[in-house]
Structures are given as C-alpha cells and as structure tokens.
C-alpha cells in the first residue's frame, strides 16, 4: 500500500468515525415501513440488549483478497475487529440462529474415483456457496465439464458462460492475513476475444484480439511467460501458458500489496454478456489452459495460486488430468451485440452442429441458431416503441404484459425472469422511472438480436441502458444491459 493509499484509508476512517448513528434508528425504520404500508399490520421487531462488539464494516475477509482475481468473485464477510461498540449505536445481541459454519474437511479426496459427479450448485454471482470436496459437473459452459474439487471451495460465480471457484488453502473466512499461499481460484469460461490493456480500461467491453490468439494478449499486456506448451485436456487439443506480471510493470490501482505490481486484464465472455477480468500479479501466476473447441470459442480454464503453493504442487495437475469434457458445443444462449464487443458481429454459423452428438442441449442450441433472425429490426423497433408508450403512460399492466406468458428478461446482474415474474419486475419500476425513451435505432447484433439504446429517467436520475431484443421461435428475450 502506498503512502497515498494509507493516507486516504486513514483519513476516510477518521471522517466516517465522526458519525454516530441514531440509537433510535431501528424504530425509525420500522415506523417508515409502517408509514409506507398503512393498510397492513406491520410487525415491529423488538431488538434486545446490546452486547455485541462492533463489527468493522465492511471488512473483506481473506477470501476477498483472492477474489480480486476474478470479477464478481468476492466473498464478503464481517469480521469482529475487537473494538468496542460506541455506546449510542444499537447493535444488540443476536436473537437469530445463524447458519453454522460448514465443517472443515480434509483434502483427502480420491481423484478420478469414478463416482457419479454432482451438479455444481448454481450460485449466480455473489458471496458464494460452499462446495464440499468431490466431483462436480457443470453445463453452464456449453461444453459439459466434470471436475474434481479437491477441498472445500466457494462457488462465487456460476452463470451461463462462467464458473468461478475460490478457496483458501489455509484458514477459513475471517482470517486476517492474506498470503500468497492461501488463495486459489479456478475459473472456467468461454472466450470471445481478449482485451488489450487499453481495451481493459474501456467502459465498452472491447476485446479485439481473436480468442485463440493468446500470444497477442500476452504480448500486449507485457506478461512474463514461465510455461508455454501444447497439451491435452481430456483428449482435446489445448495449450497451457503460465503467466505473471513483470516486476517492472506499472502497477494498477487497487492491487493487493503482495501482488504489486499487478495489472488488470480482460477477456470478453460472449454468453456472459460482458467481460471476465483478472488481476495478474508479479508474485503469483495464472496457469491458463486454452482448450480448442471445434468451430467455436475456446474453453478457458484458469488455475491461479502462489508459485510453489500446494495448489500448484498437489492439486492443480491432478485436477486438470481428471477433467472430463462433453462434446464440442458453442457457448450457451446470449450472444453479445456487436456494439458491445467492439463491432465484431458474432458468427452465427459456427454453432451447434458438432458431428455425432445428439444431446438435448445441442439440439436446442442448433434450433435456436436455425431460427434466429425470424424477426426484423422493424419488428423489434415496433415492439419496443409500443412498450415505451405503455411505460410512459404509466400502464403497469401493459408493461408487464410484454413478458406474459413466457418472455424472458435478463437483467444486468445476470438473472433471468420469465413471464409474469419478468413483467412484474419491470412494472415495479414504472412509478419510479416515469420516462422511458428509445435513443437509438436498432442495431443488428447478429443471431436475430437487435440492440437499442434507451434512457430511463426518474425525478433525480437518468439511467442509460441497452436493451437487446431477440425473438426465437416466438419466444421473446429482452436483455437489459447496463452502460456506464
């Protein structure tokens, strides 16, 4: 941490500590809730006597030190820092039975035991779900992947196009110190393009380097390569590179001290609708396996940890050796609009026809691609304009009806809502954002998708977004994409 970092950290703390929240805050919140819902009986929750020590807020535990490696891959926890709670701040004795911590398990998993793999629990994107050691499979990457989890890890991102697991090889959540050895991660994604350093700083999620051209990505980021060889992953052609940042690189802001210098680098994940980004440091390495998937984007498996850590020495090789891949297949679902991925229109012809395979997933994908483009930009524009009119007239029912019975809404957090749930969700914003405008013509994003710039306005703010509209076999899909 630089002196400037220390100064900002210290003085912001000094400023924040000047605030002493009202001791009546809980009662005031309850009253506000009651005022908002006058027709309902509101349960007043009584808090009990304060005996808790203050929790430093919000303290990112050791898992988060690891988590800077991967976007959204953060475990947030509170830590008791041992300081006393100010007398007038209400933090009472908990009356809630909190979930027990998962019991630590030893790492004596038998790799490749042939046991039936469990489905990787879906975690969305967030604080994470604990995963016990064992063999798991995921179908979120287009190509099915089965792999061993060597010890308890956290799934912190598991959405179409990406899976990220984090773990601490020592300690548990709540440990104070991050060391090079205690953080590991494993991420898997489908890469549609690599970003140059300049592109990584761009707000527009651009990745102009072709997905199989990892050399250009390494060169453009000035990375140091300590391993570069052809290999196989479950019989598939692959290439493995181990990279780190040069010691004389200029460090990006926000680096872990132990990693400095570090850089942030991105790749575009086509069906993630955005970027996957990593921090790379000078004192630890990423081992990146780029697995060739015929006719489609590569599968990228990144294992990261401190050099010489038990992760690399004991687990990573075996994990990679025991990975099993399903038939070649394109990424799932979403294809980013050209305007978001640097005007590179996706190739819809390279999908879904792996020979000799008849899995349900591929059949579905092939059907999707075959039927893409059923609607026109005029159809999509008319649909959107009608919806805009409904919105601006305050007609919540009509806003919701767009999604009934089976239209799909995908929000910036990656969540999908279908039908009435999607409609209700959007309608709930009508009272707040009283004006919706389409601010661009539709852009053909390929595969039957059209993207439109829109603007939602409330009394106090304007949200500029992109709506990507696709109609496949009569089913409407609307992706609500956040722009800076």
């Amino acid at each position: 941490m630089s002196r400037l970092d220390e100064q900002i950290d210290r003085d912001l703390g000094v400023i924040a500590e000047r605030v002493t929240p009202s001791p009546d805050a809980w009662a005031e919140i309850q009253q506000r809730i009651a005022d908002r819902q006058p027709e309902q009986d509101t349960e007043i929750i009584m808090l009990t006597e304060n005996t808790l020590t203050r929790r430093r807020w919000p303290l990112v535990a050791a898992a988060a030190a690891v988590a800077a490696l991967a976007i959204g891959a953060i475990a947030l926890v509170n830590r008791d820092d041992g300081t006393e709670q100010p007398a007038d701040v209400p933090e009472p004795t908990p009356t809630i039975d909190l979930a027990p911590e998962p019991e630590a398990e030893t790492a004596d998993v038998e790799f490749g035991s042939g046991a039936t793999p469990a489905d990787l629990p879906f975690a969305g994107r967030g604080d994470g779900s604990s995963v016990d050691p064992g063999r798991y499979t995921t179908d979120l990457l287009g190509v099915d992947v089965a792999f061993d989890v060597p010890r308890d890890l956290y799934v912190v991102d598991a959405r179409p196009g990406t899976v990220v697991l984090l773990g601490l090889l020592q300690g548990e959540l709540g440990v104070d110190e991050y060391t090079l050895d205690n953080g590991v991660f494993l991420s898997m994604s489908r890469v549609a393009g690599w970003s140059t350093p300049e592109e990584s700083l761009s707000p527009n999620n651009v990745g102009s380097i072709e997905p199989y051209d990892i050399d250009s990505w390494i060169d453009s980021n000035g990375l140091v390569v300590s391993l570069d060889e052809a290999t196989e992953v479950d019989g598939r052609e692959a290439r493995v590179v181990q990279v780190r940042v040069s010691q004389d690189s200029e460090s990006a802001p926000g680096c872990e001290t132990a990693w400095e210098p570090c850089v942030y680098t991105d790749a575009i994940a086509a069906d993630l609708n955005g970027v996957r980004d990593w921090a790379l440091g000078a004192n630890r390495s990423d081992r990146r396996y780029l697995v060739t998937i015929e006719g489609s984007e590569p599968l990228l498996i990144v294992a990261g940890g401190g050099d010489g850590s038990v992760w690399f020495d004991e687990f990573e090789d075996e994990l990679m050796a025991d990975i099993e891949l399903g038939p070649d297949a394109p990424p799932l679902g979403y294809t980013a609009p050209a305007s978001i991925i640097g005007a590179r229109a996706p190739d819809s012809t390279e999908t879904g026809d792996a020979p000799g395979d008849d899995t349900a997933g591929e059949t579905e994908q092939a059907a999707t691609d075959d039927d893409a483009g059923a609607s026109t930009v005029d159809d999509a524009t008319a649909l959107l304009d009608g919806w805009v009119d409904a919105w601006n007239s305050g007609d919540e029912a009509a806003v919701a009806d767009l999604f009934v019975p089976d239209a799909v809404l995908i929000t910036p957090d990656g969540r999908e809502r279908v039908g009435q749930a999607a409609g209700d969700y959007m309608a709930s914003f009508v009272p707040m954002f009283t004006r919706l405008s389409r601010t661009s013509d539709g852009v053909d994003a390929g595969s039957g998708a059209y993207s439109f710039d829109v603007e939602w306005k409330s009394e106090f703010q304007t949200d500029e977004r992109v709506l990507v509209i696709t109609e496949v076999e009569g089913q409407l899909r609307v992706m609500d994409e956040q722009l800076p």
Partner: protein
Amino acid sequence: MRNAEDVAARKGPAATLEALYRAEYVGMVRLAFTLIGNTAESEEVVQESFVDISIRLDDPDTTIREPGAYLRSIVVGRCHSLIRRRRVMQQHPPEPPADLPASAELLWDVLHVLPEHQRVAVVLKYYGGYRASEIARITEQPAATVRSHLRRALATMRKELTP
C-alpha cells in the same frame, strides 16, 4: 457463511431485515456520510434504503439472493440521487465535520471536488474495502469503468494531497 442470505433462507423477511440492520446499518450510515457529508441525510438515506429492501423482501415473487449487496446498491444509488439533487439546487458542498485533523480536512475537501462517480469509487474502495469488481456490482458499472474512475481520482488526489 453467516450472513443475511443464510438468514433469508431460514427465517424469512423480518429476520433478514433485522440481521441486515445489525450487520450493515452503522457502516452504511458512515459510508453515506463520506459520500454526502451530512449525518441527518445519511441516516435518512439508509433508513429509506431499509424500507426499500423491506418491501422487496416482503414480496413473495421477488427473491433477493444477496440482501447485503442489494442494500449497498440502494444506499449508493440514493446517495447519487441526493448529490444530483443538490447539484440541481446548486447547493454548496458540505462543510467538513468540526475538529477534523488537518489531513482529514484536506481529504474531505479533495473528496468533495471529485466527480461523483470518482468519489463513490474512492469511498467504496478505501472506506468500504471493496475491490473494483465489487464496486462495479454495487454501482452497476463495468469493472473497467470503475478502475478508470479510480485511476483518475487517485491522480487528482495524489496531486492535491501530496506535498
């Protein structure tokens, strides 16, 4: 993990709100204060944010996977709104709290001349302890944008704070 998400799954919305209050209220008020510089308004923002999330928690058709993260987003969004409202009303930046040490007062001044997005990024990073990817989630911006805000903010702050 012991967090509001577990409680949500086990105990329902009222207990979730209570757990969220215990875990987050003080920190949220202080976070809001560093952004908007007024204690009463900070409490107002955070309490209204709790009301917002309470309504969502009570909605049987809505599942909030991460109440804590959702709350943080609401608080930051409400702070944004307040700052914009001030700008529209051409209000002056807030006065620093009394008796701040000189270096903290200087930081206060620099902080409140930073563009709003940069200020939010700096506060979330240094006070909140968040990383760029988390800030991106909270502020609903791409992580690359957040990093850009941080770089620019730190360049300004280095110039203003370094003798």
